[in-house]
C-alpha cells in the first residue's frame, strides 16, 4: 500500500474550501415556477380521481341494469329467438292469405302481382298493422262469435281454466272449458279429469296437458302436491322450467291454491337443471294488472285468443290506451283498433263508462266485437263489474246490446271439448 498523500485533516480542509455554488436565478422566477408546478400538481390531484370516478360511474350504469335483469335476460334470449322464428313464419302465412283476399276482388286481379309486391314491401316494415287491416277487410261479413265465457253460459256447468303455452312458448293462454257440474267431485278433481281431454293442437296451442305429474290435493290446507317422475321433461331448458312455473302459478290462482309442494317420485323436491333444487312453489305477489291482447295462432282469419300480459299500469284508461299497441316481442296484436278513441269514466263503484268519440267507427263486425271482449276482460282485471258503451254507431254488436250495461265475462277464451 502506498502512503496517503492527504491526511484526513487536509482533506477536510480542502472540502470546506470547495467552491460555493450559487443559484443565479431571480428568486421571483423560482417562486413563479413553484407556484405553476404546485398548481399543476393540484390539478393533477383532482383530474385523475375524477376521471376514475367518471369511468366507474359509467361502468356502473352499464353493469347494474344488466346485473339486475340478468336472470330475466337469459329467459328473454330464448324468447327472442322464438320470436324471430315466429315472426318470419307469420309473414309467410300472411303472404299466403293476401292473394286469396285479392282474388275475391275481381277488379284488382289484374294488378294483383304488382300489388302483392307492394304489400310485401309494406309487410316487411309493418307486418302487424297490415294484419289488422287484413282482418277487418276479411271478417266484416262473418258472424261474430264470442270468445269468452259469460254468465249465461254457466247454467249447471263448471268453468275450468287451463293455462296453456302457445306453440312458441312465448305466451301463456288461459283457456276455459265448460264441464257438467258433478256434486260428487271437487273442482280440483274435475280439473284433473278434464286435463286429458284438452285438444291443444286443434286450438293451435302447445300440447302441454295432461301434465306429466301426479297430483294430490289437500282441500283443507289448500295445498297441492305435484309429483313428477324421475325422467320428467320439465327441466330440459330454463324455458321449460319457467313455463311449468307459470302454468302452476296459474293453476294456483284459478283453483285458489295456497302452496304447491314439489316432489320427485314421492321424494321431496324437484331437481331442475337450471333453477336447481326446489321444494315448493309459492306464487310471488305480482304487481300490475293484466291487460288483454290478441293472439292468432291459426292465422289472421281465425278466432283470436285473448292473452293477458301483466303490466305496471294502474288506471283503466292507460290500460286501454296500451291495448292499441301491438306487442311484437310477444307476437301479440293490439286488441283495440288504433283509430278508435274514447273517454273513460268510473260512474260508480264497479261501473265503467266508455264514451266513443264521434270520429270512431263502431259498427257491428267481428274485430269490434273482439275488441269489446278485450275491453271487458281488462275491465274485469281492474275490478269493474259492468261496462257501459256510449256513442257507438249501432245499438248492437254481436250478442252485446249496447243500450244496456255489459257484464264482464266469467273467463277468457272459451273452447269446446270434444265429446
Amino acid at each position: 500500500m502506498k502512503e496517503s498523500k492527504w491526511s484526513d485533516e487536509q482533506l477536510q480542509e480542502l472540502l470546506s474550501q470547495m467552491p460555493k455554488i450559487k443559484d443565479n436565478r431571480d428568486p421571483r422566477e423560482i417562486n413563479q415556477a413553484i407556484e405553476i408546478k404546485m398548481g399543476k400538481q393540484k390539478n393533477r390531484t383532482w383530474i385523475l380521481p375524477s376521471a376514475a370516478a367518471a369511468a366507474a360511474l359509467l361502468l356502473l350504469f352499464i353493469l347494474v341494469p344488466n346485473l339486475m335483469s340478468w336472470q330475466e335476460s337469459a329467459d328473454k334470449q330464448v324468447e327472442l329467438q322464438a320470436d324471430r322464428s315466429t315472426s318470419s313464419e307469420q309473414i309467410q302465412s300472411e303472404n299466403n292469405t293476401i292473394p286469396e283476399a285479392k282474388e275475391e276482388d275481381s277488379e284488382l286481379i289484374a294488378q294483383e302481382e304488382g300489388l302483392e309486391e307492394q304489400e310485401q314491401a309494406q309487410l316487411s316494415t309493418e307486418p302487424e298493422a297490415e294484419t289488422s287491416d287484413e282482418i277487418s277487410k276479411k271478417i266484416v261479413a262473418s258472424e261474430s262469435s264470442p270468445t269468452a265465457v259469460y254468465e249465461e253460459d254457466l247454467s249447471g256447468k263448471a268453468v275450468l281454466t287451463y293455462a296453456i303455452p302457445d306453440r312458441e312458448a312465448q305466451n301463456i293462454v288461459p283457456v276455459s272449458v265448460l264441464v257438467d257440474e258433478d256434486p260428487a267431485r271437487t273442482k280440483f278433481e274435475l280439473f284433473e279429469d278434464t286435463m286429458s281431454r284438452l285438444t291443444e293442437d286443434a286450438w293451435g296451442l302447445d300440447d302441454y296437458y295432461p301434465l306429466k305429474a301426479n297430483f294430490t290435493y289437500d282441500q283443507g290446507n289448500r295445498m297441492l302436491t305435484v309429483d313428477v317422475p324421475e325422467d320428467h321433461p320439465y327441466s330440459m331448458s330454463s324455458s321449460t322450467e319457467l313455463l311449468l312455473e307459470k302454468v302452476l302459478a296459474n293453476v294456483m290462482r284459478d283453483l285458489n291454491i295456497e302452496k304447491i309442494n314439489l316432489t320427485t317420485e314421492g321424494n321431496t323436491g324437484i331437481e331442475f337443471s337450471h333453477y336447481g333444487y326446489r321444494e315448493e312453489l309459492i306464487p310471488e305477489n305480482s304487481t300490475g294488472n293484466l291487460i288483454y291482447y290478441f293472439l292468432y295462432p291459426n292465422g289472421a282469419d281465425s278466432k283470436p285468443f285473448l292473452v293477458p300480459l301483466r303490466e305496471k299500469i294502474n288506471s283503466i284508461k292507460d290500460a286501454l290506451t296500451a291495448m292499441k299497441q301491438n306487442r311484437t316481442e310477444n307476437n301479440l296484436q293490439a286488441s283495440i283498433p288504433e283509430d278508435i278513441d274514447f273517454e273513460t269514466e268510473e260512474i260508480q263503484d264497479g261501473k265503467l263508462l266508455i264514451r266513443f268519440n264521434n270520429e270512431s267507427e263502431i259498427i257491428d263486425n267481428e274485430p269490434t266485437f273482439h275488441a269489446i271482449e278485450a275491453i271487458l276482460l281488462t275491465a274485469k282485471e281492474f275490478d269493474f263489474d259492468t261496462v257501459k258503451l256510449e256513442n257507438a254507431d249501432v245499438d248492437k254488436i254481436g250478442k252485446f246490446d249496447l243500450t244496456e250495461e255489459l257484464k264482464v265475462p266469467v273467463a277468457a277464451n272459451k273452447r269446446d271439448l270434444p265429446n
Partner: protein
Amino acid sequence: MDSVFDELYKKYHHDVFQFLFYMVKNKELAEDLVQEVYIRVLKSYERFEGKSSEKTWLFSIARNVAIDSFRKQKGWKQRIMEKFDWSTQQVKDELPLPEEIAMQRDEFQLIYRCLDLCTIDQRLVIIMRYIHELTITETADSLGWTESKVKTTQHRALKMLKKHMEDFKVKEGMDNEGIKVER
C-alpha cells in the same frame, strides 16, 4: 405562503441549492430539484413541528428529493439504455466541469470527480459534514441516523474519497507519463 417562501429563500436557498448541486452534479437538475424541495416544504410547512431545527428539516427534505431523483434516473429507461449503449458508462464521468469548479485548483477538481465514486450515503455525509460544515448532531438529524452511524460513515467516506483520489492520480500520472512515480 409567499412570505414563507421569501423567508426560506433568504435563509437557506443557497445552502440547499449547493447541497443538491454537489449531490447530482448538474446545475439544471439542481435548479429543478430545489424547486421540488420548496414544493414539498410549502405543502407540509404546517406539519413542521419544530422538533428539529428548520435547517436540518430542509436538509432532510433536500436529501429525499435528491435520492428520489437518483431513483428516477435509474428508471427503466436508464436501465435499458445501459444494456444497449455501452458508451454511456464512459460518457458518464465526462460531464463538463462547471466553471466554478473548472477555475479552481486541481485538488478541488479531483475531489469533485471522486465524489461520484463514493456511495450515496458517503457522499451525503461528506457534503453535509465537510462542505456545509453541519455538526454531527445536525447531520444525524437531517439523515435520520444515529450519531454513531454518522461517525462511522464519515470515517469510511473520507477513506474512500482519499483512495479514489489516489487511484485517480495514479491513473492520470500513468497517462501523462513520466511524472513522479514514487517507487
